[in-house]
């Protein structure tokens, strides 16, 4: 059997066995609706409350400052639109390298008459807090900057941006989907008013996520219905998911630091291995301020998809940094914003390592990448792209 290596943890992760075990009774034994008054409902409510307490303890916030949602995308929509719509009109600051959940929420606000500034980034993908300062206007009503970029792993200076936001009295939303449970987050020290996080990036289940909303922050709901989540997010709670998120967070609190060190070392081993064997490669993202397991590597004059396909055939899962859909190739908006030249950006491949990645996996990937890129380049017209 071919070896299988999963290096796409920024896309999703396997659910941790401890998380699965904790969730299972909530499918078949504790199945009541948490809103119901009877015993079945009360048991489910107790589980939701206990999980909320766990997440709150992990983030060092109050349980009533947390709203469970269906995913990072919903949390981002809620965070960005909820802050803006609560203020009716005005100006929003975000960056060009945000996840599409934030970017397209901002575009939706523009269509409704809001003004939006999309801040540039430097060659490492980092926002300059001075640009945030310059972008601030008297009518600025919200700032949304991600904690870490999912494609290149660059960690933004959210602490400095949060300080500016606080000084200006502007609420600050942070998309922390890629850092929650991987990198230290202190919403008080960082002056964060709303924070998106998700379960399935940290060995929890898909379909569960959350939004932290600082007490007293003016926010409107974007999903209407019943009185759930203190009337901030209507819909029957995803009880098994919430239980799983609570457990996943507990496991992260225990394992996060040691795993980050191990994963970082493996990521460096992989990059050093590839750099030593393959010509014309570059590592994208900030050299030090970066997610532990993310390596976004450009192979010049090779198209990402051909590498992803060839590695897939060797049992290796990575993701392409450019997307070819219906015959038109779009290089990643993140790499474009970083000023990566097109002949490099088209050959971007992201690997994201995780808790189960081993040194043997990494060595297999290095050997495979070396062979695959050499082979594809042999069929390549000189100077194409």
């Amino acid at each position, binding site marked *: 059997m071919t070896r299988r290596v999963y290096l796409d943890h920024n896309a999703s992760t396997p659910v941790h066995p401890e998380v699965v075990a904790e969730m299972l009774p909530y499918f078949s034994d504790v199945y009541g609706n948490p809103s119901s008054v009877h015993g079945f409902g009360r048991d489910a409510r107790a589980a939701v409350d206990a999980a909320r307490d766990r997440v709150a303890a992990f983030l060092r916030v109050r349980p009533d400052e947390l709203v469970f949602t269906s995913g990072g995308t919903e949390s981002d929509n809620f965070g960005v639109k909820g802050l803006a719509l609560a203020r009716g009109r005005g100006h929003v600051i975000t960056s060009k390298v945000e996840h599409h959940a934030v970017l397209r929420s901002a575009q939706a606000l523009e269509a409704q008459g809001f003004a939006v500034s999309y801040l540039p980034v430097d060659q490492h993908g980092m926002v300059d807090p001075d640009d945030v300062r310059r972008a601030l206007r008297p009518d600025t009503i919200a700032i949304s900057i991600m904690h870490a970029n999912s494609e290149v792993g660059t960690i933004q200076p959210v602490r400095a941006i949060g300080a500016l936001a606080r000084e200006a009295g502007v609420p600050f939303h942070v998309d922390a989907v890629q850092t929650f449970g991987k990198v230290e987050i202190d919403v008080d020290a960082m002056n964060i008013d709303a924070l998106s996080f998700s379960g399935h990036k940290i060995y929890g289940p898909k379909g569960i996520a959350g939004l932290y909303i600082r007490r007293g922050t003016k926010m409107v709901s974007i999903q209407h219905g019943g009185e759930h989540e203190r009337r901030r997010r209507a819909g029957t709670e995803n009880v098994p998911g919430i239980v799983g998120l609570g457990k996943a967070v507990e496991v992260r609190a225990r394992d996060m630091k040691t795993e980050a060190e191990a994963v970082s070392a493996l990521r460096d081993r992989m990059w050093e291995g590839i750099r030593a064997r393959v010509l014309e490669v570059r590592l994208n993202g900030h050299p030090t301020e970066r997610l532990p397991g993310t390596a976004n590597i450009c192979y010049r004059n090779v198209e990402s998809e051909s590498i992803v*396909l*060839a590695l897939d055939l060797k049992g290796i899962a990575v993701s392409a940094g450019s997307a070819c859909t*219906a*015959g*038109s190739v779009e290089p990643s908006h993140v790499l474009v914003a970083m000023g990566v030249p097109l002949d490099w950006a088209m050959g971007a491949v992201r690997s994201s390592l995780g808790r189960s990645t081993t040194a043997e996996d990494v060595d297999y990937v290095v050997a495979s990448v070396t062979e695959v890129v050499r082979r594809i380049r042999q069929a*390549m*017209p000189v100077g194409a792209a």
Partner: protein
Amino acid sequence: MRYSPTLVDHFLNPRNAGLMREADGSGSDEYAGCGDLTRFYLRVREGHLAEARFQAYGCGPTIAAASVATELAAGRAVEDLATLKAQEIEDALDGLPEDRKHAAEVAAGAMRAAALDALRRRHGNREA
């Protein structure tokens, strides 16, 4: 896998990849907006294709389409290749997903261009 075993085989083991020196005809085609590029070099003997080589930049299907085109073109009359259809290449790959049809179109376009170049050169020689 969204690609056929034939396509995967041609992608992993491309036939006739590389440059040809002093070809009797060469031609290329690219797909606007996508950056895909395919180039063929032809060696012609008595009006028929004796050898073809290709170079390609693009996704897996683009490389596979160029590779399979060199095989299906072997031994055929150059006049015939000057009207090669994308469908023939696609069929030889046992099909292409809807969003990758352009791989066969680029390969067919490049093969037609290379065949026309070979025909032009042959006529040029006769006149000379």
